[in-house]
């Protein structure tokens, strides 16, 4: 009986691996999850969830234009991602409208522009795969691009890991000791745009913001050390991706949605049972039984 269920679980995991597109999807999504998870720690601590939402939606017209012109879509996405942030900053400075309002109106404007462009530019752009991701249908050139961007972001974040932490924690001190805060601000924004680009392949533009904030929020509930937070964030993102893809394969569900739902469930688990910060504080619960 036990052997039988073991075999089932075994084939649950190995059967999908027989398909080439599944192996590719699992690998690529794990890589993307790792990148977004890494960045997620910074965004959560900096309080940039809304900014992540804005940038990830604003890359839409960039992706469409790049496709239409035959350019790498990451380039278009990057320009519009950073451009949206610049525009948000400009409008905020030059008007009396509050920041969250400006963010909301700028990114929806960009997003709408993207949708209109898709309907106008008759090409083989698949609106559905941009909006909801298509990790199972990823092409070879996309694979190369994703690997390149992912490595770039990971290298940048690794080099400036401590400076970025200081920037999130106490930018005033960073400035006072001669650290280039302006550079760090735009470095983080650049990484955010790039991560949004690779993330949208996995889960699509609408849900990519989840990849950028949920793992960090989960990790934040589980530790008081920044380095641990980064590790937990990356691991939870990767595990969610694997779970999401397997579940979508076996139960024939939308892959992007499944990945994000897996992240949400892991967050809820941490929210309820995190040792120190969970609602039911597991540590105390166990201590009571000893």
């Amino acid at each position: 009986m036990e052997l039988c269920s073991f075999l089932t679980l075994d084939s649950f995991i190995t059967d999908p691996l027989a398909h080439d597109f599944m192996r590719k999807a699992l690998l690529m999504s794990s890589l993307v999850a790792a990148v977004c998870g890494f960045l997620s720690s910074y965004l959560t601590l900096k309080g940039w969830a809304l900014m992540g939402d804005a940038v990830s939606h604003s890359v839409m017209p960039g992706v469409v234009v790049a496709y239409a012109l035959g350019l790498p879509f990451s380039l278009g996405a990057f320009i519009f991602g950073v451009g949206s942030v610049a525009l948000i900053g400009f409008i905020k400075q030059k008007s009396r409208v509050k920041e969250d309002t400006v963010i909301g109106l700028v990114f929806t404007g960009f997003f709408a522009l993207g949708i209109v462009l898709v309907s106008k530019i008759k090409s083989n752009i698949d609106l559905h795969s941009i909006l909801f991701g298509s990790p199972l249908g990823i092409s070879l050139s996309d694979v190369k691009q994703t690997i390149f961007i992912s490595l770039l972001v990971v290298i940048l974040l690794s080099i400036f890991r401590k400076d970025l932490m200081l920037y999130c924690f106490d930018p005033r001190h960073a400035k006072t000791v001669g650290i280039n805060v302006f550079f760090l601000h735009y470095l983080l924004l650049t990484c955010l745009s790039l991560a949004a680009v690779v993330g949208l392949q996995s889960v699509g533009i609408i849900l990519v913001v989840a990849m950028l904030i949920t793992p960090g929020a989960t990790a934040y509930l589980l530790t008081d050390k920044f380095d641990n937070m980064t590790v937990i964030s990356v691991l939870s993102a990767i595990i969610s991706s694997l779970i999401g893809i397997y579940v979508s394969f076996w139960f024939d569900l939308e892959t992007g949605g499944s990945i994000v739902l897996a992240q949400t469930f892991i967050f809820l688990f941490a929210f309820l049972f995190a040792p120190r910060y969970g609602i039911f504080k597991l540590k105390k619960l166990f201590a009571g039984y000893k």
Partner: protein
Amino acid sequence: METINYQNFRIEAENICVDYNGKVALYDANLRLQPGQICGLVGMNGAGKTTFFNALTGFVNISKGKIRINGESVRSAQKDQTIAYVPQNEGIDSQFPISVWDVVMMGRYGSMNIFRCPRESDVQAVKDAIERVDLTDHLSTPIGNLSGGQRKRTFLARAIAQRASILLLDEPFSGVDIRTEKLISELFIQFKNEGKTILLSTHDMIHVREFCDLVLLINKTVVAYGETSEVFTPENITTTFGGISPDFLFGPES
């Protein structure tokens, strides 16, 4: 015509103005401080105290005037680790996942290489600084688990580890316990003897009388500046606080 030797002054702010998108936060403010001087910065909320600090650290740009730190620009003062800023407790995210050790180590970042790898000397500086503020038992404690006083001391240790010659402290005595207050006062005397220059903002009039050689009363601009005994008068204080009687501010006379 008198020529000013800038080298004599640690801080030299001349007619500085700061505005945020056209809203004036500070105008025509002057300040000169020498090594070993402690100056109190007194004013209402929104009177421009934090703005003054921000201008001196280079966190905001001044729209007019001139700031010289040790006779040099703010930019080179940043590079030389000349100024340390100790934030208000409310000014920092106490839930940030970071330990006492890591916060104090941030005082050394400016003089480390790009990867911020601590050298032997950095580790020693951090250890010494933590010892001076009496937090050696809390090296790996997350700052979220510290009391208000302990957190204040952590940031003071960061300034000590930085080995800055100018300390800017935003409300160093607000929300701290008696023990921390005593320790900070003792440190101030030591800093003074080491020739450091201290500028601190405070709401507490008693502290000004106790530590400050000089006092700078501000309300968007300088109301009065000079020796505490001469400038810190009920009339000046009333003007600074927009007509509120000093009796009210000081509480019942003891």
